[in-house]
């Protein structure tokens, strides 16, 4: 086993898999903690309070909760106004609408103003499944990471989402937190470290380094197990912070393995993989295979079916990595 014990992951990690919890639960829990600790924390939503778990905060702190209705542009703008009064403001909606609908408001009212508005994009990636392509946010990392004064985080499970939420609350400017609808194995623990901008190495390896984020981290860990049986020693890195990118980790693993595969539930262009590739290019250039959705609108289907079809489950990831390793050896 090459699992990094320092990370205090769940034990056992695979058989049986840890209990599944939606990552947005971690976000909702953190808001309660923040609301309790700091009377300057406000929460806003756009008609999705229950499914984004902001109703927990709303029930407890109704005076610091604003329901704007189906109006994501106003959501971002009102938040910026509240934040300009010295408050820390979380806005929560589905990723396709926020940052999808309100990018200009995030750019000017939030980022250019440089006020502490934290954007929670829920229901991102393919795992909204049956809702279909219109609701599958696969471009949100790309559109947020390009904005100045914006930090971008894609937590791997509920506990990491909780820690990420607490961490971004302390930052002076804007931040984007990405969660998904589907329940995810709760494989990190309270003791697992979390620091914005510092990638977590969950599994050591020498042949290839897999950089993953969100629900793809656990899938990548599973993929690494099966790759080990095929004699491929794959490291797995939880690249939860997409911006600022952990340049040190990227360079270190580029040097160690000479091959990086990135895995994300997002377009392969512009997202975490692109951010890693940019970092590799300016530190220690080695091949970077970016795996995700390839310039494509997907379709309706159950979450597991879609992940399998687009090779974003452990089997698909193993296949992509195997191919990359074979090409490296040629």
């Amino acid at each position, binding site marked *: 086993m090459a699992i990094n014990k320092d990370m205090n992951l769940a034990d056992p990690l695979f058989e049986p898999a840890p209990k599944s919890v939606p990552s947005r639960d971690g976000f909702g829990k953190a808001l309660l903690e923040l609301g309790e600790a700091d009377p300057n924390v406000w929460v806003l939503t756009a008609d999705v309070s229950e499914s984004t778990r902001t109703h927990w905060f709303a029930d407890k702190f109704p005076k610091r909760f604003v329901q704007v209705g189906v109006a994501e542009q106003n959501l971002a*703008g009102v938040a910026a106004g509240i934040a300009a009064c010295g408050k820390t403001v979380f806005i929560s909606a589905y990723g396709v609408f926020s940052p999808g609908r309100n990018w200009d408001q995030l750019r000017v009212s939030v980022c250019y103003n440089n006020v502490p508005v934290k954007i929670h994009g829920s229901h991102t990636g393919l795992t909204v499944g049956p809702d279909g392509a219109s609701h599958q946010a696969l471009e949100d990392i790309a559109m947020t990471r390009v904005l100045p004064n914006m930090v971008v985080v894609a937590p791997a499970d509920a506990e990491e989402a909780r820690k990420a939420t607490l961490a971004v609350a302390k930052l002076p400017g804007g931040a984007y937190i990405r969660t998904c609808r589907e329940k995810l194995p709760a494989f990190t623990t309270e003791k697992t470290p979390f620091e914005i901008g510092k990638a977590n190495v969950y599994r050591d390896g020498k042949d290839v380094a897999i950089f993953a984020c969100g629900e793809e981290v656990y899938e990548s860990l599973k993929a690494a197990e099966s790759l080990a049986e095929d004699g491929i020693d794959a490291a797995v890195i939880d690249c939860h912070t997409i911006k600022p990118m952990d340049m040190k980790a990227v360079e270190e693993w580029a040097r160690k393995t000479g091959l990086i595969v990135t895995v994300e539930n997002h377009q392969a262009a512009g997202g975490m993989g692109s951010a890693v590739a940019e970092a590799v290019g300016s530190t220690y250039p080695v091949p970077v295979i970016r795996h995700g959705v390839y310039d494509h609108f997907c379709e309706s289907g159950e979450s597991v079916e879609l992940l399998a079809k687009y090779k974003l489950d452990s089997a698909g990831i193993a296949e992509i990595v195997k191919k990359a390793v074979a090409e490296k050896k040629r």
Partner: protein
Amino acid sequence: MADRFRINNLKKLKMIANTIRQDVLRMLFEAKSGHSAGSIGLADIFTALYFNVLYHTPKNPDWPDRDRLVLSNGHVCPVMYAAMANAGYFPKEELLTLRKLGSRLQGHPHRGMLPGIETSSGPLGQGLSQAVGMAIVSKAERKKWRVYCVLSDGEHQEGQTWEAAMLAGKYRLGNLTAIIDRNNIQIDGHTEEICPLEPFAEKYRSFGWHVIDVDGHNIKKIIDACEESRAVYEKPTVIIAHTIPGKAISFMEFLTEWHGKPPKKEDLDTALSELEKQRDSIESDDF
């Protein structure tokens, strides 16, 4: 504490508006780009705001209990900069750095760069939402400070403005006063031809607002309308201020072509001499 200027002497206020117009023309001439007509047309409203209506402390721009003034249509910022400099926020010499490299006076205003600027603006339709956010905080925390938001008429073609208007109605933001520069022009022509905004007042009324129509060049009436809005406790107020783009400069008035261009040297000289003549008549006027 606040030094609310509270200049009630109309002659003095008219003189200040005249000075602001002259400053704006010089600034735009030096900058060689910028928006003339809207900035000039708003001189009377900004005079009323900065020299009578607002509770503010130019020497202490971050005073927590200040009234907030959100400028939504950022392109008319020269008039705000000129009003601020005349009110003592920063030295008047700095006005001529407008739009130049290294200046705090950005082409569109930027919060954090120039103390006293509440929000960065420029892309239209974003100001009212932020003003609503501020007013919600003031109301929730039972503060006395109010929020004023200056908007253009054209930016009511942006859907976000109406999203914000709807939410202000929901929260009955009696501490919010929106002032619309109803000058009827936008870049491509007249608002009612491009995409009609009327009936403006009825739209706002139906969103739960108290509406006041006012002559946007009558400083006394602008002040009175703002006072009236302070007295309306149960709903937000919108002041539809009817203005003439380029007001007081004979060759600029009403012309859409002056929306987005600065004066040339001869334009500047003519305009300044017209304004100087107006000073004489303000001086001799009986108030």
